[in-house]
């Protein structure tokens, strides 16, 4: 029997929380200088490991969806891809022109995730209306 959407949601959220927790822990350890120098490049990337499983889980969830719902998600991901790309590129050009603060990548990458999921959700709302 295939896992239900709520089970997928729980595991996806769980993996995202594990990744966020690991990111905070690694960041704290790095701040206190507690990371072994030689292993530092490996240790700082540990929070990425749950994200790999996170994406496989999302891909599996999408494959298990009803065919219309899967198409709706694919169209919503296209909306998210375009909107996130346009947002990042627009902000980058404004920053390059000195019109907005030029943040470093390390300061803004958590917000990139936020943009991805906000635009995915907005895409779902827009695309679902087409098939209602």
């Amino acid at each position, binding site marked *: 029997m295939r896992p239900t959407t709520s089970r997928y949601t729980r595991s996806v959220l769980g993996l995202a929380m594990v990744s966020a927790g690991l990111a905070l822990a690694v960041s704290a350890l790095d701040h206190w200088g507690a990371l072994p120098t030689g292993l530092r490049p490996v240790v700082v990337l540990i929070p990425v490991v749950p994200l790999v499983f996170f994406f496989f889980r999302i891909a599996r969830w999408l494959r298990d969806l009803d*065919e*219309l*719902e899967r*198409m709706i998600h694919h169209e919503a991901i296209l909306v998210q891809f375009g909107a996130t790309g346009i947002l990042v590129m627009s902000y980058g050009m404004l920053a390059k022109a000195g019109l907005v603060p030029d943040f470093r990548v390390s300061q803004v990458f958590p917000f990139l995730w936020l943009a991805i999921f906000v635009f995915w959700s907005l895409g779902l709302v827009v695309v679902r209306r087409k*098939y209602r």
Partner: protein
Amino acid sequence: MTNRLRVLRAEHGWSQGDLAERLSVSRQTVNAIETGKYDPSLPLAFAVARLFGMPIEGIFSPEPSPEG
């Protein structure tokens, strides 16, 4: 594409939910097919045809739906 899904479903006395369950899809999918907003995949079209005991072309026809 147009289809006779709503008529056939009514003839069997099934709700959209009943048909969705028999086809292992969501009620939203059945509704979107009936209203011509979504054209089913070939496997789903075959499943519909098998369920009603008819050829695919007896249920689906290539003429554009009135809603486009």
